[in-house]
């Protein structure tokens, strides 16, 4: 059978399309995806910001690799920056200075790269918060949450390896801290640092090794996980906020071609433009101030980039003297505890969707998002997590908080130590109360209408404010949410109640015992009749 048919279209475009399709069957893809619908909401663009920053990082990073030398070979700097002339430093540092001071546009590209890196991690964080607080991680998207989580960790690893490459004083002290942290790990610490640094700290190898990770291995993984992540977005279709006309079975929005392509495509240029604008006007990582790495000096206010701050803060908040000698070995609790805290915190974030799925036992697919108020306990858990992270983060700048608010650094650290424990608890309770109060307010508005501000005087002389009922669309907005109630503890088919069942029941009570059910039609009718009396 011959499949050759006459070109569907004449003209250059038609001929070219035909040429392409006969070799790629691309028309199928266009048919499948060209009119795929994407819902429109500002918070759905945060993941795109992350994707676009990654593209910006790839572009600017490739430019930088043409000039950067990932070598710790000592050289005497002879470039343009006067205060470092004649100083001995590594080739990595010298070439970074050359990029900054001797290559046109080099400093701009360095700053684009670094600002975009900060934006990359920040937008991933914000995107994760959006997904968490709207419950977008529920079935069928749990695995995509895991993939996204891996991307978050990879992004931090990319950031840290990049931060260390110029071999300046700041990044060198950062590596020194990593070295000290790993050394403190039980059993394997000493050997891991020895292998990582190719001998003693700082050694001669670390920059080259981090460079292969930074430009080869890690970006490859990031790319693979981005592809997986986006593939699942296509398979699942995007979630949408609840509203009139929106159901679990449909997606309401704009088609990829042309509107979404214009908006999302335009947004890439906007993100790039904002990064370029910041890079043109604001200094980032002025390595010429820090000077080359030398184990003796250090600068006041030595901090990592923001996304490593929570780890640095965890180290800072440990009280003194936490070290023991057991069985002839040294147990550095001042390292082990913060590392455990961080690992557990990240593990909790990773596992949350699976835990919630287990507790609810809900096997339905959820494509309609929750408004945060309609899942009070989840929202409260999120707020507690954010508070915990924020306290660790603030702790990483304890010295700068002290000088800028004219308080003592000891006071700042002691306060944060207390806040780290009680802050999340307070945040949990307050957030849960606020969410429940907002739900009550929604009920109130639904049942009794909203205040119009119009005061009328009744024939009897009484003044009342006229309340107006919502229209059907606004009403739907307030009643269409997922309602959950705790599970009843009932024996399984074997007539037994297992420990797991008990735990699940008590967790489901923890989640759903304070519950405000959506208004039903009958309730609404009753309220209406009541108000007409």
């Amino acid at each position, binding site marked *: 059978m011959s499949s050759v048919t006459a070109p569907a279209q004449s003209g250059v475009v038609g001929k070219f399309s035909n040429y392409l399709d006969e070799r790629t069957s691309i028309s199928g893809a266009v048919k499948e995806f060209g009119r795929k619908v994407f819902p429109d909401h500002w918070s759905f*663009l945060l993941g795109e910001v992350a994707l676009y920053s990654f593209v910006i990082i790839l572009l600017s990073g490739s430019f930088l690799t043409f000039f950067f030398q990932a070598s710790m070979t000592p050289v005497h700097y002879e470039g343009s920056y*006067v205060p470092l002339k004649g100083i001995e430093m590594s080739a990595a540092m010298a070439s970074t200075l050359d990029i900054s001071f001797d290559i046109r546009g080099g400093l701009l590209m360095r700053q684009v790269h670094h600002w975009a890196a900060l934006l990359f991690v*920040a937008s991933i964080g914000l995107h994760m918060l959006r997904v968490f607080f709207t419950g977008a991680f529920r079935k069928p998207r749990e695995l995509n949450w895991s993939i996204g989580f891996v991307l978050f960790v990879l992004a931090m690893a990319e950031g840290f390896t990049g931060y260390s490459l110029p071999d300046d004083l700041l990044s060198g002290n950062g590596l020194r801290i990593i070295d000290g942290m790993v050394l403190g790990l039980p059993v394997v610490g000493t050997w891991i640092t020895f292998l990582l640094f190719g001998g003693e700290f700082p050694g001669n190898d670390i920059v080259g090794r981090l460079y292969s990770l930074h430009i080869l291995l890690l970006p490859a993984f990031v790319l693979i996980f981005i592809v997986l992540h986006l593939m699942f977005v296509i398979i699942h279709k995007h979630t949408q906020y609840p509203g009139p006309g929106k159901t679990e079975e449909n997606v309401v929005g704009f088609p990829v071609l042309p509107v979404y392509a214009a908006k999302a495509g335009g947004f890439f240029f906007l993100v790039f433009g904002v990064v370029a604008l*910041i890079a043109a*006007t604001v200094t980032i990582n002025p390595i010429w101030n820090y000077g080359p790495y030398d184990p003796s000096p250090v*600068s006041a206010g030595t901090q990592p*980039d923001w996304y490593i701050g929570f780890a640095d803060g965890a180290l800072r908040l440990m009280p003194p003297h936490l070290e023991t000698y057991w069985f002839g070995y040294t147990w550095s609790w001042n390292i082990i505890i913060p590392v455990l805290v961080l690992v557990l915190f990240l593990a909790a974030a990773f596992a949350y969707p699976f835990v919630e799925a287990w507790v609810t036992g809900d096997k339905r697919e959820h494509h309609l998002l929750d408004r945060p108020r309609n899942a009070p306990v989840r929202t409260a858990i999120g707020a507690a997590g954010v508070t915990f992270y924020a306290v660790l983060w603030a702790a990483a700048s304890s010295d700068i908080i002290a000088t800028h608010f004219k308080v003592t650094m000891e006071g700042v650290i002691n306060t944060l130590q207390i806040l780290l424990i009680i802050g999340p608890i307070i945040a949990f309770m307050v957030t849960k109360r606020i969410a429940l109060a907002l739900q009550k307010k929604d009920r109130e508005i639904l049942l009794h209408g909203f205040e119009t501000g119009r005061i009328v005087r009744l024939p009897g002389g009484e003044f009342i404010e006229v309340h107006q009922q919502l229209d059907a669309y606004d009403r739907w907005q307030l009643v269409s949410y997922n309602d959950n109630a705790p599970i009843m503890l009932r024996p399984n088919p074997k007539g037994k109640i297992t420990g797991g069942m008990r735990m699940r029941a008590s967790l489901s009570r923890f989640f759903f015992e304070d519950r405000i059910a959506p208004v039903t039609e009958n309730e609404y009718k009753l309220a209406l009749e009541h108000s007409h009396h």
Partner: protein
Amino acid sequence: MRKNMSDNKAQRRRGRRGPIASVALILVGLVATGGAYAAFSSASANAAVDLTSPAVIEEGQKLFAANCATCHGQQAQGTENGPSLIGVGSAAVDFQVGTGRMPMQMSGPQAEQKPVQFTDEQTQALAAYVASLAPGPSIPTASQLEGGNVSNGGELFRINCAMCHNVAGAGGALTEGKYAPELTGVAAVHVYEAMLTGPQNMPVFNDLNLTPEEKKDIISYLSYIEENPSAGGIQLSNLGPVSEGLFLWIFGLGAIVALTVWITAKSN
């Protein structure tokens, strides 16, 4: 001059915290780069007063008795409230009084920099009186403050000073509410005197530790970085990754979130 300088500085600092998305900020960036040349000035030692003249010393003694003796004692021998000043030299007096740290208004974690209380002549007279009590480090001359080796100064600065004052001289925290002050805008002569005398909790860097030549190098380095603001643009107070992170979250992500709202809002 000093007043002028701090005004100029305050103006730049406000500019840094302005909204980035606006064009105004670019203008501020331009002002910061260009204008900073004008901002720097190194007040040099005032050599007009002869510190050994008995008349000057006598005037200094009177000023001392009226303003300093309550804490430091009538003969500058020190009391419970203030250390002995015998042997601290004219450099210490010129630094403490010339930067407004002395006379102290109240006790706190450390003596704060305040508006200067005395005229130059009065400060010199006080210095002359204290110097006459016992030999000590003396006020450096103008030739000790200029023309040093910038890159050597940078290296010495990083090793001896940056741990407290930050690599860019932006200052930093010490224990119990004390801090190492910012060095931008500090007159070269005062930097020199501080190294020489080790005011308050700052260690002493005598001439056998950092030679006069090396001190000059350090001062030249500080003037260089002050005269040549960052090639990258607004410096965010030189506080490093903390201010960069805050800037990115507030202005970078702020601008981008504003854009996402605009993109998804219905056109009207």
